[in-house]
């Protein structure tokens, strides 16, 4: 069998489909100041984010927050861990700024020799806007791993990591899926 025709979807890789991480509580809670910075950065002036009286009169009955904001809440660096940014540059002065940052709830790596990583796309499913004061819980899972063959005849993988976000009442907030190509 030539290198070009070797399958990348080995039994060990297939076995990762469905593997879940722990349910992790994100550091902190959904708060108005983070909401202000986030919505200004995405350039969304919706008064449902900041005018309490108006927000309470809407379909949602309260101040709302952008659904995807919780994904960045979940990736916060906890203050009770060593500063990973400083460590990254101590280990490698040419660090890209993210290489050594450990995130809670990460999944075990997919056992493949394909090391080049490309962003293949994203999916969002939205069910409820997080409320101010919500604690956010999240869980990662490999929801799908597929094999494709490139124009050069070499097999590559499309790995989809699904993350489910809930709040302290176990209400489903949103589900995100991020797919990466491994060549």
């Amino acid at each position, binding site marked *: 069998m030539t290198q070009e025709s070797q399958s990348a979807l080995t039994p060990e890789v297939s076995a990762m489909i469905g593997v879940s991480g722990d349910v992790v509580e994100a550091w902190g809670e959904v708060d108005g100041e983070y909401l202000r910075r986030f919505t200004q950065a995405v350039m969304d002036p919706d008064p449902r984010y900041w005018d309490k009286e108006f927000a309470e009169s809407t379909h949602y009955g309260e101040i709302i927050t952008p659904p995807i904001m919780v994904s960045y809440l979940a990736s916060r660096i906890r203050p009770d861990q060593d500063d990973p940014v400083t460590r990254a540059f101590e280990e490698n002065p040419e660090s890209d700024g*993210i290489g050594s940052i450990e995130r809670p709830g990460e999944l075990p790596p997919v056992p493949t020799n394909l090391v080049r990583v490309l962003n293949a*796309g994203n*999916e969002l499913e939205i069910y409820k806007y997080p409320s101010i004061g919500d604690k956010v819980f999240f869980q990662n899972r490999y929801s799908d791993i597929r094999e494709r063959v490139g124009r050069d005849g070499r097999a590559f993988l499309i790995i989809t990591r699904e993350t489910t976000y809930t709040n302290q009442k176990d209400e489903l907030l949103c589900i995100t899926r991020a797919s990466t190509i491994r060549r």
Partner: protein
Amino acid sequence: MSLPLEELLKLEAEEILAHNERPKADDLRNKQQIYYDDVEEGMELPKYIYNPTPTHLFRWSAAIENFHRIHYDLDFGLNHDRNPSILVHGSWKQSVVPQYLKDWTLPKGWPWKAQFEHRAMLVPGDILIMWGRVTSKYEKGQMGFVELEIGMKTHDGIESMPGTATVVLPLRGGPDIPYPFVPPAD
């Protein structure tokens, strides 16, 4: 007057900026409901036009605590990663999508699903056009489901984020869309 996407892309970059339809706070406060009954295949959504600067990129990096240097360190981007400039974040584009769908479905519709790919490297100086177009619609469980083609094009017509979305609109005279959203059973 809202220009069709095809016509917008015939304009010079500076002229495109004049056709920005991003709503102000009061527009969103007073948004009138679009009902399922009013939607037709081929209908275009308003175009949100952005002109991201290095400062916008830095503000986004800071807001979401993304320390990747390709987004704010020009020397690193040019000389280490060989990028054409600092790069607009995929995460920012991803965050515009639910905002865009929310705004269109306000005040009582629901931006349920979206999927999209990231293509092309976007840099400060690119004029970016968030766009959407109705591709089909169907009723289910007394709710109106609308399928959209969405994307974010550059001023020279490069599609950087091809995708699709499903939003839910109330039927004229029908019940409110449930909140939190519960999709009807298959």
